[in-house]
């Protein structure tokens, strides 16, 4: 689906896409079920389903440039399309005179939002929309029709809305926790990689440093003329040795994986210096032999 690396963006894109798909599918089914009602208009269903399909296409086109804001905007647009369609069609359902469970779609919508909303504010607004349109529509109906509603309606939708809000907050906090855990894991993995690289670098340089140390000693024994130069070189080596000692404190933090121990100079050349360094390294080695 979306190629964005950001978890929140992925959630937003996916939530909006699924909501749009549910809109298109739900409205189609609702239209199919309402075909026995002669006065029921087609356009609210068609409009809402088309908007759902259009949003799916739009989201697919924009999947590589998805943002949380884009997902939220698509989600809200989809919600508004559903609410408008439900506002119109629920009036016709109520006037059929048949047994009807009022505002089923609004109740279902309030719970679906809790699962799919890209952001908390968008979710709260959508749940409020599903609840408010149900209650509002009830008061727009003829009092005679209102009296035919089951006991407790339309207020049951508020209970659904309350459950929706609780589920939405629960889900959002779970996602925040998940993101935090992923961040901590990513940081730990990055620190582990850095430690491994530093330790390999240190291991890689220990033999050359040892070579310099012994070369200084050999030159000291062979000639006294170079003493000031060799003293400076020795001080420089001491700094390098100090650095090596500092890195030793990271040894316990690094866990060796199978195969790590076989990595040495050849692999290090390629990993740390790149392939371009190999000919130079080989040439240098040949010249010194």
């Amino acid at each position, binding site marked *: 689906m979306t190629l964005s690396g950001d978890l929140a963006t992925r959630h937003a894109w996916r939530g909006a896409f699924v909501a749009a798909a549910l809109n298109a599918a739900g409205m189609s089914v609702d239209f199919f079920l309402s075909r026995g009602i002669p006065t029921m208009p087609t356009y609210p269903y068609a409009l809402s389903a088309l908007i759902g399909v259009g949003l799916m296409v739009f989201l697919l086109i924009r999947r590589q440039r998805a943002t949380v804001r884009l997902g939220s905007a698509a989600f809200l647009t989809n919600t508004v399309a559903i609410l408008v369609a439900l506002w119109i069609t629920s009036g016709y359902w109520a006037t059929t005179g048949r047994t009807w469970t009022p505002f089923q779609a609004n109740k279902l919508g309030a719970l679906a939002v809790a699962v799919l909303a890209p952001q908390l504010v968008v979710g709260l607004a959508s749940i409020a929309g599903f609840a408010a349109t149900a209650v509002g529509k009830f008061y727009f109906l003829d009092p005679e029709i209102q009296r035919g509603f089951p006991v407790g309606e339309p207020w049951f939708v508020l209970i659904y809305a309350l459950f929706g809000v609780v589920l939405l907050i629960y889900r959002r906090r779970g996602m925040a926790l998940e993101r935090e855990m992923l961040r901590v894991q990513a940081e730990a993995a990055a620190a582990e990689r850095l430690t491994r690289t530093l330790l390999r670098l240190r291991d890689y340089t220990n033999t050359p440093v040892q070579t310099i140390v*012994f070369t200084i000693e050999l030159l000291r*024994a062979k000639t006294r003329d170079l003493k000031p130069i060799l003293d400076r070189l020795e001080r420089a080596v001491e700094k390098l040795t100090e650095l090596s000692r500092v890195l*030793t404190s990271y040894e*316990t933090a*690094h866990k*060796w994986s199978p195969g*790590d*121990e*076989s990595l040495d100079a050849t692999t290090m050349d390629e990993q740390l210096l790149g392939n371009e360094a190999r000919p130079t390294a080989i040439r240098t080695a040949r010249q010194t*032999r």
Partner: protein
Amino acid sequence: MSSLTEPIVDNPHRGLTIPHDSVRQAPASVMGTGFVLYVEDNDDLRELVVELVTVVLQRRCVGVGSYEELVGLGEEALGCSVAILDINLGPNRRSGIDAYAWLRDMGYTGRVVFLTGHASTHPLVVEAQRIGDAQILSKPIDPDRLRSIIERERQ
């Protein structure tokens, strides 16, 4: 008793202190002739140490670059009074620990010092630490340390 061609990888002694009474005794003629044996895969460092030990410390030093070269020395290698072994002798190559096991297996009773550039937590170093009768030193060591290792044998 292991033969020279037997894979040391499967050697049951590996990683353990090898009881000296369980291995072949080296011929008296080659024991204690007093040279320094240095096993190191880095050519520059190996040649340098051989020169340093010879010129500065006035001791004969034999340097080999791999386990196979060490085995190639045969009983001559057993004449050293101290064996300084690099632990990691290259990727997919037998290690200094294998060299240690071969020396002990052949009856070498002299001193062994592991010299390594790797972390103390490196698996090979951990394995070397389990060996009871070998000293482990981390690169870089200063020349005085090298001198003390070698002079100690002389005393």
